[in-house]
């Protein structure tokens, strides 16, 4: 097991390298260097000495790989992600809370998806081709077909139109800038249900289908008959054998659902005005605040990579067949 984890972590290194290069490319993409855009944006003339200092710090006159090296080594050694020019702050001051909220929302949504999808998937498989199964299947397909942001818009409209409520945001106005306290956490939780449902719909629909298909596969396996022939009751049988085996692919599904959640939360957060990484990235891209944008892409990618790693390890832990391969 330890050897397996070690191997997975070693695999991580090239992935991280490639991700950091992609993020760096994003930083480099806009025409001209960012100092030019900084100077053009500044209202008053920028102090030439300051410009030169920045030029030196990011190695802008040097070849591109040196620039990359300066950037990445700054991140690794000092946690220095560069500077946001729009906010006039260090990037690292801006991102951590938002990254934390992204993680919280994604994990809560993941939990929501599992809690809803597993029982419904089991029901749908056991009651195959009944009315209930068809209803679940159709709702599932519709859930898959509605883009997150559209669902968000519709729900916001319904809340606004029929309940006179504005449901966006993660905090009530008085808590937005407040320090963390129990009240703020509770306020956060009371706002979280909407984004969790919106983000979770597509994933839930997908996992119901995965669970149903897996369980149907497993239900027809011989070991189920063998256990039944041993005298086990139907319910115990169902949960001890086929459901248990059918859950394995669900754990590995985390590997693709988690990136999808982080990814989907970008757009949903923009629509719902949540203080996660999504809207920040959006704004930074619009204002070409490239160090902020690149850092966000890097961190969000690292986040999903870690999610994938965790799900792999989890799967190896619950499925004895994996480590052997």
């Amino acid at each position, binding site marked *: 097991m330890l050897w397996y984890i070690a191997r997975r972590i070693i695999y991580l290194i090239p992935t991280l390298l490639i991700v950091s290069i992609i993020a760096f490319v994003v930083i480099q993409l806009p025409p001209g260097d960012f100092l030019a855009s900084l100077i053009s944006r500044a209202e008053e003339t920028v102090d030439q000495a300051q410009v030169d200092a920045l030029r030196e710090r990011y190695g802008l006159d040097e070849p591109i790989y040196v620039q990359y090296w300066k950037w990445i080594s700054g991140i690794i050694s000092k946690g220095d992600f560069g500077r946001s020019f729009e906010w006039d702050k260090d990037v690292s001051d801006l991102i951590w809370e938002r990254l934390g909220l992204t993680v919280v929302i994604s994990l809560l949504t993941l939990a929501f998806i599992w809690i809803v999808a597993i029982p419904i998937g089991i029901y749908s498989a056991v009651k195959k081709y009944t009315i209930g199964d068809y209803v679940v299947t159709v709702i599932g397909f519709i859930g898959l077909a509605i883009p997150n942001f559209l669902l968000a818009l519709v729900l916001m409209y319904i809340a606004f139109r029929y309940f006179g409520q504005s449901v966006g945001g993660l905090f009530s106005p008085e808590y937005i800038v407040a320090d963390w306290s129990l009240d703020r956490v509770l306020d956060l939780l009371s706002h979280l249900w909407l984004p969790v449902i919106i983000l979770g719909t597509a994933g839930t629909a997908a996992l119901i289908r995965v669970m149903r298909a897996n369980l149907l596969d497993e239900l027809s*396996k011989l*070991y189920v008959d*063998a256990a039944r*022939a*041993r*005298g*086990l009751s139907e319910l115990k049988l169902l949960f001890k054998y086929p459901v248990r085996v059918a859950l*394995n692919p669900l754990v590995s599904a985390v590997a693709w659902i988690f990136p999808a959640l982080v990814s989907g939360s970008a757009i949903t957060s923009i629509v719902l005005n949540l203080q996660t990484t999504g809207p920040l990235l959006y704004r930074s891209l619009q204002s070409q605040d490239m160090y902020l944008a690149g850092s966000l892409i890097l961190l969000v990618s690292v986040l999903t990579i870690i999610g994938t790693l965790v799900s792999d390890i989890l799967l190896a832990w619950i499925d*004895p067949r994996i480590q052997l391969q």
Partner: protein
Amino acid sequence: MQPTHTRLDDPAKTDNQTLLDVKDLKTHFFTDEGVVKAVDGVNLSLKRGETLCVVGESGCGKSVTARSILRIVPSPGQIVSGEINFRQRDGEAIDLARMNPKGREIRKIRGGEISMIFQEPMSSLSPVHTIGSQIMEAILLHLPVSRQEARKRAVSMLDLVGIPRPSEQLEAYSFELSGGMRQRAMIAIALACEPQLLIADEPTTALDVTTQANILDLIRDLQQDSGMSVLFITHDLGVVAEIADEVVVMYLGRDVESGDVDSIFHDAKHPYTRALLQSIPRYDSRENRRLYSIKGTVPHPFARPDGCPFHPRCDDFIAERCDSIDPPRHKLSQSHSVRCLLYSAADEAPSKKGALS
């Protein structure tokens, strides 16, 4: 449906020596495309301590018959009619066909009184549970023992079926064992509660020849020690010759001939049985001719021929009789019966010359 607990005292119906008596069992599958009559009138009877082999081509309903006895026919299959009389350990005879397949009573029978092993040992063991947990599950379900005792018993069962280092193998997963070892483990699970009847559904088909022989020996040894009966399902006549006391030959969901192993191998009556016997290659055959093969193929399940189901492939087909009259069971002797118009209706129509030679 309530099971009926009647003492069958009528010796003509079931004497005390008869453990299992299946009468005119019909198990049909109601699919969207139509009804598949997988088992359509099977009779068989098995005495205590004996081995009954059910032989036939694939698709003739052997496995469905076996599953019907344990009431684990997969949906959309259903027992439509017939009796499955089984004498419990306490001497009481019950009709398994009338039990609720999900009820408590049949569950007591499964694994406790009747056990089953399947064709593919790989897929009949759970991929994510240890061998030990599956044996102990069976023991704890049927015997009033503690987990400690169940564990001990599991180890001794693994030892009994010849698995080396049994207490270690208790923690093994099925994918860590070889095919033969897996089937031994299956047998250990099946026999853990000392059932009266072991149903073996082609248990050696997926194994290589040497392993096959080992498993057959094992089953025979265990049977001699415990006195259980074995219902052995196979398409391999070689296996039948080796282990059977009684034989039932099935074709298209029906028993076409049944009898003791001698009468079947040396005095086969039904054209299908004889055709099967002729199609076994013999190394001592002096004639240098092509191996016999039955003409035609097994009909489509929806296209059951009328009359005798075998008539379109039969060499001794009597026009306008075999294709319209459903042949009844005809008793040739105390232990030998056949369903064929060549014999049962000899008084009405002269049997074809050569048919009996």
